[in-house]
């Protein structure tokens, strides 16, 4: 496993972790901060935390679940520290949108899922987070509960409400949602 390789002193193990998880983690963190540049910084911060603290991974959940839980903590710390909204200067806005679209295109291969992601971005932050983890990262409800530090029942309820909100959003856009 790459993390074990890294702990044993092999930096290539770390590079492999970044390659495997960077994009997905960045889009997940973006659902908290809504700024892809800041999400990129926080993703790097998550990897740095992993490398400096070298916490013991106890196999209680998959490595990915564990990494996303660390990423969530980093994002929440950032929101606590900088409660004011992260404003993007107008000139940077076009670049931000383009860069975000590139990441999405690279990570979300299917066109239909990309359209779903666009609708997802109009939902509240917690609805975005839970649906991202379930639909785009294929985490089980139990894994999402571990990442978001909620009960499985709480996650089921949140997914239900988020799906309703997403359905409304898709209907507004005129998309069918039979498979939702």
């Amino acid at each position, binding site marked *: 496993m790459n993390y074990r390789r890294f702990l044993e002193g092999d*930096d290539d193990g*770390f*590079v492999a972790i*970044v*390659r495997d998880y*960077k994009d997905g983690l960045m889009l997940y963190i973006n659902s908290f901060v809504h700024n*892809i*540049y800041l999400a*990129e910084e926080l*993703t*790097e911060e998550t*990897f*740095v935390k992993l*490398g*400096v603290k070298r916490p013991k991974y106890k196999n209680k959940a998959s490595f990915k679940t564990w990494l996303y839980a660390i990423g969530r903590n980093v994002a929440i710390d950032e929101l606590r520290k900088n409660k004011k909204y992260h404003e993007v200067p107008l000139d940077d806005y076009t670049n931000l949108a383009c*860069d975000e679209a*590139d*990441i999405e295109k690279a990570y979300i291969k299917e066109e239909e899922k990309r359209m779903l992601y666009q609708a997802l971005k109009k939902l509240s932050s917690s609805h975005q987070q839970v649906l991202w983890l379930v639909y785009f990262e294929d985490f089980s409800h*139990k894994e999402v509960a571990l990442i978001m530090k909620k009960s*499985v*029942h709480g996650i089921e*309820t949140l997914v*239900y*409400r988020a799906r309703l909100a997403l359905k409304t959003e898709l209907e507004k856009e005129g998309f069918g949602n039979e498979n939702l």
Partner: protein
Amino acid sequence: MKTYDEMASSALKRIKQQRQKKQQLTKVGLMLCASCLLIAFGYFSFSDDKQKATLTDNLSNTIIINQNHISSDQSKLNLDLADVVAFNQAELIQYFGHNIFPIVPSDLNSWLDDNFSGYRIYYKDGKVYWDQQVLNYSNDDFSRSVNLEVAKDDLPLLDFLVSQERTSMSQILGYDVYIADCLDGYYQAQFICDDVGFVLTTKGLSEAEVIAVVESLLSDSS
């Protein structure tokens, strides 16, 4: 935006810097600790016995670890998904020995959807250790809702505050029912009926509608 390799090398660089900084801080910390120990040793060597006794008393902690005599699952700390037995609606009514599904106003729908995999009872070593059920109903815009928590033998455990001033109990169909109006659109009701505990919370329902929901649970003849 950074490529994978750029992010990896930038992160590795920061990791190395931070680890070096940490090592330096540890060294400084160790030196400071050693200095403090030397100072403390010198101080206590020349101070009187009374002062020494007071400081020792302040530093000594008393640690008592009590034995709970019940396991984490029985204390509801550890609900293990491996212990779940899925029940359907009929099986659940049979288990409780009483209907637990209320009749709610017609604009409210159950939250359970097509993917619902069954009601959960946690069962281990021949015993049920967690049977609390949560049933939710709401209208389309969530302005009206019914939340019902049910458990066998006693009132369900709650994670919200219920008023303790239960001086006046209603009598509905021969049962004692505690009902409270929270004055902001919420009602609460609690009652035990045929050894099944119910806690009902409603939002946006009228008093008459709340009573009707309670009656639908009490009038069971399963």
